[in-house]
């Protein structure tokens, strides 16, 4: 008879509260937290909380995690681990028995580039980055916005190389990587990369770079004939054709604020 397994290991995506730490001064932090917690004493009871350290990652000072965790426990808060922070801060956290979360990246909602004709004519209402707030409108309580992106782009990305035509209906996703395509990308095909996209052939389909929100991602194309271009969720369609100065020419795309800039590559 086969025995039933006594446990299973699975990954799961759970939403957790993040406490963004913006100072290494523990007494300041504890004082302001006490004030904040006094407003909603029961809110954090038994709630796992991740300490988000990107705000202090650049600072030299460490943080007394043992002290902070004890303080949090005394208020019913349960520190589950940390995300972000400097190497030293991460080591301190491990010493204090905290878990280390990998840098979290929030996928950007797609939004139209502000220089797209539709946003000018008002035919489309811009969508602000939305995330369901866990607790509505409390002072000092921010809903998770799209951030922590710089830490992703800081790491060098591997490159996926495609040397065959990408045809209608095909989708290539370079997850956590740059994408280089050496053959034609036809209308109806989709290129998606978390990093940059290079196409050394005509690009007639959709190119979606910085798919996880990397605003520094770029798109380089040998012959610019796209259906759609997108960087970090900011997209542009070409109903009235591609601008004359780049159409069917070598061009580069980058994001300037919420504007997608397509520039000819002159060499």
């Amino acid at each position, binding site marked *: 008879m086969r025995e039933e397994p006594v446990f299973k290991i699975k990954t799961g995506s759970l939403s957790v509260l993040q406490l963004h730490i913006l100072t290494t001064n523990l007494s300041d932090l504890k004082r302001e937290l006490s004030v904040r917690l006094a407003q909603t004493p029961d809110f954090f009871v038994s709630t796992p909380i991740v300490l988000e350290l990107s705000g202090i990652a650049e600072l030299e000072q460490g943080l007394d995690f043992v002290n902070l965790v004890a303080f949090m426990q005394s208020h019913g808060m349960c520190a589950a681990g940390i995300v972000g922070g400097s190497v030293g801060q991460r080591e301190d956290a491990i010493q204090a028995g905290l878990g280390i979360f990998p840098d979290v990246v929030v996928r950007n909602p797609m939004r139209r580039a502000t220089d797209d004709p539709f946003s000018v004519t008002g035919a489309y209402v811009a969508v602000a980055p939305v995330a369901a707030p866990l607790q509505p409108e409390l002072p000092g309580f921010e809903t998770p916005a799209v951030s922590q992106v710089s830490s992703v782009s800081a790491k060098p990305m591997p490159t996926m190389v495609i040397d065959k*035509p990408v*045809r*209608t209906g095909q989708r290539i996703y370079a997850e956590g990587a740059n994408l280089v395509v050496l053959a034609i990308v036809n209308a109806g095909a989709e290129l998606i990369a978390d990093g940059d996209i290079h196409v050394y052939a005509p690009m007639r389909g959709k190119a979606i770079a910085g798919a996880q929100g990397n605003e520094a991602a770029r798109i380089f194309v040998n012959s610019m004939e796209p259906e759609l271009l997108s960087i970090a969720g900011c997209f542009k369609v070409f109903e009235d054709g591609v601008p004359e100065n780049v159409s069917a020419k070598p061009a580069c795309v980058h994001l300037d604020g919420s504007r997608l800039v397509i520039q000819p590559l002159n060499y």
Partner: protein
Amino acid sequence: MAKVIVVTSGKGGVGKTTTSASFSSGLAMRGNRTVVIDFDVGLRNLDLIMGCERRVVYDIINVINGEVSLKQALIKDKNCDNLYILPASQTRDKDALNLEGVERILDELKESFDFIVCDSPAGIESGAFTAMYFADEALVVTNPEVSSVRDSDRILGILAAKSKRAVEGLEPVKEHLLVTRYDPKRVNTGAMLSVVDIQEILRIPLLGVIPESASVLQASNAGTPAIHLDKSDVAEAYRDVVGRFMGEDLPMRFISEKAGFFKRLLGGH
């Protein structure tokens, strides 16, 4: 080693069955032992175009289900000695075609034939998928219009990703472009895509161009593959296609209305 060739297009009505009939006839006329299989279960047409519809007793589904032997279901062509037809079923649905059964039939056919031509149904559903899955080479039939080219592009993508050769990491399916219903006059007026335009999008080697002709319809209705027509551009174009497929270096014909047109095509943009 026998070769399995799928005639496919994505879009319907572009000339897959006409091409399958003429191409397989052309191969047989050159002395190759050839069989042509109709994969369009439920909408069988190949037997009509080959003029053997009254001789269909058993079909591919009967063979797959083991009800009859392959020999019993094969129909000898009335025009060519070396050509046999395996008809589709009119009454079954497409789900009756399964990959295991088709592979078994193809393996058996490979023992006695040089070329196995698979006439694919339109679309990208299971019937079309089954027809292309075992292909060694593919004739992609395209009309000179954007939707047909787009659908052919889709089919080429599926061939490159989901055929047996792709799945097993073997040498990829060899692709050939066949442009049918080509009318140089309408290409000149800009009403049709040119061969150059089509190749610019699909980027696979051109096997041939079949001109638009009323004789194709007459041949279909008469149950004679177009390649057998006398004094017909279409017949000559299909003979060229077969010649090129067999490795002959033949100039492209029937793509220009008058001299100098091709030059203009290549030069102008």
